[in-house]
């Protein structure tokens, strides 16, 4: 199969190039894109990408495959390439490239940090765990599962235009995860930090985040909940 892969080594290359590589795939098997990359790396050890768990849990191998972001380890080649066509691999869009498919995720983590992704509780510590009812716990479903692979934020045009001001779908999903937590007491402060024209409101409901999330999460819905909470607080 023909694979077109984005190559860039800032130490030696002036510009990034798309390199065509022929890869022999085993017959009768539908490989994951990560397996194809591993085969390519056996031929050319200089090809760089991040990977770890190879089962969609660690979120390391987020990349752009034939125009769509996803995790290479859980994306079957057959799901993105029609028979006889090229597999096109690029780094996650919108972030600075360190080398080949490896991107600098500093700005992504900075936006994540902004939403204070940890429980804040100013009540005296309890002798046992802070308990939640099953209903309260249920509110966190669809929020806590995020693995921070950055597939959503780097497929979001609003994040491309304002990566330093718009928190992005991944960060906002976590913002709502703590706003919705019955044990968190910083709701007012969290909301106040989000009401400017950029942090939340740059979301235009494009829903690329929902389309690409490898965990099937829905950041747009979480952003809608944040907007409702902001309106409730302000009126």
């Amino acid at each position, binding site marked *: 199969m023909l694979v077109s892969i984005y190559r860039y080594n800032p130490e030696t290359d002036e510009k990034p190039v798309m390199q065509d590589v022929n890869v022999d795939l085993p017959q009768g098997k539908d490989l994951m894109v990560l397996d194809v990359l591993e085969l390519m790396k056996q031929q050319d050890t200089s090809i760089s990408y991040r990977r770890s768990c190879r089962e969609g849990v660690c979120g390391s191998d987020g990349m752009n495959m034939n125009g769509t972001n996803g995790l290479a380890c859980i994306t079957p080649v057959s799901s993105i390439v029609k028979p006889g066509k090229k597999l096109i691999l690029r780094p996650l869009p919108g972030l600075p490239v360190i080398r080949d498919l490896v991107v600098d995720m500093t700005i992504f983590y900075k936006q994540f940090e902004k939403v204070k992704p940890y429980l804040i509780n100013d009540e005296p510590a309890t002798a046992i765990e802070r308990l939640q009812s099953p209903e309260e716990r249920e509110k966190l479903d669809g929020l806590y599962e995020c693995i921070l692979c950055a597939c959503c934020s780097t497929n979001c045009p609003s994040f491309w*235009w304002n990566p330093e001001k718009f928190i992005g779908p991944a960060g906002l999903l976590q913002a709502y995860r703590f706003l919705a937590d019955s044990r968190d007491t910083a709701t007012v402060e969290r909301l106040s930090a989000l*009401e400017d024209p950029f*942090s939340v*409101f*740059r979301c235009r409901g494009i829903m690329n985040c929902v389309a690409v999330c490898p965990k099937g999460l829905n950041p747009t819905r979480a952003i809608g909940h944040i*907007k409702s909470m*902001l*309106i409730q607080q302000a009126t």
Partner: protein
Amino acid sequence: MVTNVSSFGRSGLYDWIIQRLTAVVLASYTFFLLGIFILNPDLDYEQWHGIFSSFGMRFYTLLAMLSVCAHAWVGMWTISTDYLTDDMLGSKAVAVRFVFQVVCALVFLAYLVWAIQILWGIS
């Protein structure tokens, strides 16, 4: 929190609510005008003049005009801060964005004054 001075309500929440409220006003005004045209298929100048001579119609039209200006300001401001940024234009971005926003504001103000002149100029 990202600070800013040139957005309409200086708050994303207010801009967002203004955008939606003005959209409702504009939609209702559009349907109201459509209703007039449908109910009066052979509308002549005398009737048209009569409709716009009432205070209610002038008020409603002015409200629609104010909504156009507020709605357009929020929208154009958003466009300018999406596309006329440092990433796109480099160091000139602030100047270009500022000029763009001032021109937009002047155009909206001119439309508003013009609309008032027309509405209250009806004799």
